[in-house]
């Protein structure tokens, strides 16, 4: 074995990846104390939308189901949280979990038709849900406060910790996101993940394997919805007032752009996608009234045609090139001296 | 008789498994060539190589010009008809619409004779005339086979490839089909290449035969020579 082939177990690429990850986490934890309130507010928006994008990655990236209605599910979580806090003064932690649970059930209901139909119909059904949600919320105003919405206060940090409300919600969202990323990795690598892998390769093959195709697809849709619901609850905690105009079809499309851009199958890619979705409108609005939407469209097209894995695939691809260069280098060595 | 079609060192891959390895072949104008061999020997891939459905290495010349760089539809427009495995029926179109697609495939020069040909085809396959308005998907296997052949013939191809026409058909229908094939060569002055598992029928129909095994040409020659070969007798004729 020539000197260049390091011991197999800790391959340098993966080590670098994990190192970068650890550094990012430290930065994420320290950031709120060194940046302005506005930036913390934006970071928290990225984290909450990141949760929604992560839920789409699980759905689209691993079970191939397209949902254009996740803005409604995100909104369902948000409104449930706001209503429970505003009307029943339920503690916000509980309210968010209840929002997630309700979203999970909604996911099950939406998932059931998903069994019998192919992707295009699910896209259609969820499009209907996304268009209908703001109208339904505006209509039933005794419950939802209608167009005026319901206002809840961003809660201060518990146990007397001296943190501004925005910063507290930031950490709450960061912790939730970490949990969901862990869950995401668990699902993808676990039994359900393998079943999904089969599902993605070909529906026929998956059926042949006796995988509970119906059960798996519905379960994944429900888990994805539950995640998005909790993300919505946190988002609402941050924004304060729940109004129908936040949870519209455009938000669903933004989630999809974030998901495709970040990389459909990656967990960390969801954060990159969410950051893009949150920061593009502010940075490009000056170029023209519809510039943000145009930038979304162009980015989506660029990823689909030229960068299929999305941003998440870039390091892997660079790593791949670096590794293959190194591998050929090792092989040459072996040929020359190794025999 | 100059060779209508000739292939030199034709190689094709199915994924990374070699389906054809350095296959050489010729087909002369007006003859019927039978392509024999067990399942997976490369019969279907050879036909697809000729009709350019499959990418290949090596050279294939049709009427003197190389066709390696053509796409499937360009090759078809040059006069290569191909009745594919599974018959390629347009299930949601009517029988007549299927046939019209065939006549639309012919070169400009022959457009004039399209109507006459349609009647001729209805004589060749009377069952199709009876079912002319029916949805093609409602036809039986045998009827769809005849429809596929009729459709290809209507395109007045110079070379007609047929991929296992007898597959899934009863003996009576197979006889009917093969009897039509020999009439087609006469009445439609076309050259046929028939890939077949049904060796007895193929050898009775064809002038020459080409035996394939695991992507290579095992044996080629006049049908009676090939029929004598002990390997062929043992494996296929088994009389």
């Amino acid at each position, binding site marked *: 074995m020539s000197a260049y082939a390091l011991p197999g177990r800790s391959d340098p690429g993966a080590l670098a990846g994990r190192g970068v990850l650890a550094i990012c986490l430290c930065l994420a*934890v320290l950031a709120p104390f060194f940046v302005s309130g506005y930036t913390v507010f934006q970071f928290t928006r990225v984290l909450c939308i990141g949760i929604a994008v992560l839920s789409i990655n699980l759905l689209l990236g691993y079970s191939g189901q397209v949902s254009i209605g996740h803005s409604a599910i995100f909104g369902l979580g948000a409104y449930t949280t706001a209503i429970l806090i505003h009307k029943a003064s339920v503690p916000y932690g509980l309210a968010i979990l209840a929002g997630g649970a309700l979203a999970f059930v909604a996911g099950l209901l939406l998932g059931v038709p998903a069994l019998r139909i192919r992707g295009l119909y699910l896209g259609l059904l969820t499009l209907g849900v996304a268009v209908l949600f703001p109208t339904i919320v505006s209509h039933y105003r005794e419950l939802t406060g209608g167009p005026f919405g319901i206002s809840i206060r961003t809660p201060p940090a518990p146990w007397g910790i001296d943190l501004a409300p925005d910063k507290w919600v930031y950490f709450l969202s960061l912790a939730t996101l970490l949990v969901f990323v862990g869950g995401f990795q668990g699902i993808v690598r676990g039994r359900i993940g393998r079943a999904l892998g089969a599902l993605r390769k070909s529906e026929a093959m998956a059926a042949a394997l006796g995988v509970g195709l119906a059960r798996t697809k519905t379960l994944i849709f429900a888990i994805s919805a539950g995640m998005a619901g909790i993300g919505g609850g946190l988002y609402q905690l941050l924004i304060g007032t729940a*109004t129908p105009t936040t949870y519209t079809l*455009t938000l669903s499309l933004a989630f999809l752009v974030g998901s495709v851009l970040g990389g459909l199958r990656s967990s960390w890619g969801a954060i990159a996608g969410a950051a893009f979705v949150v920061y593009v409108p502010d940075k490009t609005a000056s170029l023209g009234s519809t510039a943000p939407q145009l930038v979304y469209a162009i980015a989506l097209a660029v990823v689909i045609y030229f960068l299929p894995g999305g941003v998440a695939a870039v390091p892997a691809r660079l790593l791949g090139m670096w590794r293959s260069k190194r591998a050929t280098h090792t092989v040459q060595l072996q040929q020359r001296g190794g025999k | 008789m100059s060779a209508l079609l000739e292939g030199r060192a034709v190689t094709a891959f199915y994924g990374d498994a070699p389906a054809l390895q350095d296959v050489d072949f010729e087909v002369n104008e007006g003859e019927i060539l039978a392509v024999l061999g067990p399942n997976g020997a490369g019969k279907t891939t050879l036909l697809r190589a000729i009709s350019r459905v499959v990418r290949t290495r090596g050279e294939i010349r049709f009427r003197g010009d190389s066709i390696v760089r053509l796409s499937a539809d360009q090759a078809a427009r040059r006069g290569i008809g191909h009745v594919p495995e599974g018959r390629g029926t347009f299930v949601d179109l009517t029988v007549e619409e299927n046939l019209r697609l065939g006549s639309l495939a012919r070169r400009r020069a022959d457009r004039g004779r399209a109507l006459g040909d349609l009647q001729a085809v209805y004589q060749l396959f009377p069952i199709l005339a009876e079912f002319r308005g029916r949805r093609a998907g409602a036809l039986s296997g045998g009827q769809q086979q005849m429809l596929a052949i009729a459709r290809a013939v209507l395109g007045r191809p110079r070379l007609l490839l047929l991929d296992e026409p007898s597959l899934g058909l009863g003996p009576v229908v197979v006889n009917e089909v093969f009897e039509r094939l020999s009439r087609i060569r006469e009445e439609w002055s076309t050259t046929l290449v028939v890939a077949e598992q049904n060796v007895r029928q193929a050898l009775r129909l064809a002038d020459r035969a080409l035996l394939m095994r695991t992507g290579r040409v095992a044996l080629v020659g006049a049908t009676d020579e090939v029929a004598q070969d002990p390997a062929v007798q043992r494996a296929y004729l088994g009389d």
Partner: protein
Amino acid sequence: MTASSLRGPRALALMLALLAAVLAVAASSATAVTDAPPRGISKNQIIIGGSFPFSGPLAVYGALSEGAKAYFGWVNAHGGVNGRKIKYVTLDDGYDPSRLASNARNLIEQQNAFLLLDFGGPANAIRDYMQQVNTIQMNMSGLHDEARYTLTKSWWPDIRWEAGIEAAWAAKNVSNPKVGLLAINNDLALDFAAGINRGLGSKKSQFVSTLTVSPAQVDVSSQLNRLRAEGVNTLFVGLTGATMVGALKYIRQTGWKPTIFVYSAALALRGILDQVGEFENLYSAMWLKDPADPRWAKNAGVNTYKANVAKYSPDADPNSIFVENGYAGAVALVTVLKQVKNPTTASVVKAWNTLAPTVNPLLMPNIKLSGGPQGRIVHQYQVVNYANGTYKSVGKVVTIRR
């Protein structure tokens, strides 16, 4: 600490330890809040922030900000506000509450705005935040007045007052009025219905039908058919843009001749009525002059406005009702700011609430700016009738008593 220790539960433990350490550091360094000079005010400058929908389906309302910019430009060229020049910083929120919330924090924390201008329903989302950061927001439309939101002020008068005045007029002038309402399902419909009930007073039972439509729905012919079938002869319309034009055309085409009251903010000679053309018995209750109205062709105030827009917001259309609305709003704001020598949030709020009747050249004749406890700055209306391309005043100005 080898690489492998970064994997598995040990990594999580490390992370938590780090978090605890950082929190301790943060807790000790919390700075007490001192009463620094009011944010955004210096000797010669006052910073005003603006968040408007410059993109998205409601981008047309971005013109309000263009109008305000024009007047601020004029004010700066003429000595500013008590010597302070106005620095006007705007951001786009695309009519999305979450972007408005982040713009508000950006304008206040980063740009140090003294007060905020914004537009429409999304501003409901920051009423709490504005109280927390003790900063005034002037909504360039009308937000529901709630006592606890002392720092949220509205430029437009309350829709309920307008509907009330129009309904009262109808009760007096339409024989056996059967009232119907067709409006978008946002706050417009709710306030309109409330106002109509108050205005009809004893004839409340005459209010027979209310139909709301979603903003996305443009063809409302089936709703109009239904209202007509229910015998409505006095129709209140609270729609916008294409829906409004389509509705008025359909009413005329089908030969239906009800007395129509149109919500004043959705009415414009340029953009709506110029596409509808001639129309019989169309009324509204207005408080602001329409710049495209030939009646004001020689009006000094309107012409000054048009000249200033051409000079300080050249790419804005002076004939647009939205540009003029924004300009007049800026005039109202500066009028209030001039009442106070050294503005603080508290002193400006007091000046706003107690503003004595003051002339604003773009208001309808005999209508003046005037403060009020709830946070509105205009409390008077003039009922008008639209006929051959202009608004004719009907009756006298009505003042809201409370």
